[in-house]
């Protein structure tokens, strides 16, 4: 199971994302990309100390700032089935091709 397969499987599901600064985003995962950038909607934001809360209609988070994300445990069973198809292999191939192109240029 690739980490990004799990994230992909979590699309349209509730997800908890903690950023490197300790802030926690709880919301519905709208979509994500190979950089782990995500779009969330109906988000509850919790401050680092867990004392302050905000409500956000939607929000975009840059993948590089994510410390970890948590999904519903049932998702792990669902993602195993399509492991070979989602993300991983195709993503690697694509990037390799890109590098080749850059080297020639």
């Amino acid at each position, binding site marked *: 199971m690739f980490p990004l397969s799990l994230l992909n499987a979590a699309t349209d599901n509730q997800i908890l994302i903690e950023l490197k600064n300790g802030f926690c985003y709880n919301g519905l995962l709208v979509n994500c990309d190979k950089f782990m*950038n995500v779009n969330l909607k109906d988000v509850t934001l919790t401050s680092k*100390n867990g004392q302050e809360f905000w409500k956000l*209609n939607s929000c975009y988070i*840059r993948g590089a700032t994510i410390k970890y994300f948590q999904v519903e445990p049932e998702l792990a069973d669902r993602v195993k089935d399509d492991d070979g198809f989602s993300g991983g292999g195709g993503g690697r191939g694509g990037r390799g091709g890109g590098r080749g192109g850059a080297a020639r240029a």
Partner: protein
Amino acid sequence: MARHAQSILDLEPHMNKAVRVKCVGGREFTGVLKGFDKLLNLVLDDAVELMRDPEDTDCTTSASRPLGIMVCRGPSVMAVAPNDGYDAIANPFEDAEEDEEEGDAE
């Protein structure tokens, strides 16, 4: 250029609307989005920096300072959200926690 994946972030609906931007390092800005590019560089008009607690530089205070028009550089952008509907609320998890505790006690 073809190897640049299409960004999942569509800022077009937020054009000329107030957005709230969190930056790497903890600074936070609000401003009217006047432009953006695929690297997430943002042009904010009437931008306001939300000042932070000097003791805890991740937390903003009610203080702010006006900056006017500014460019927020893409690589330092951490999170973007529409300012409309961005409100402080009471602990939404409190009820759930209490229920859990009651459940444990039984």
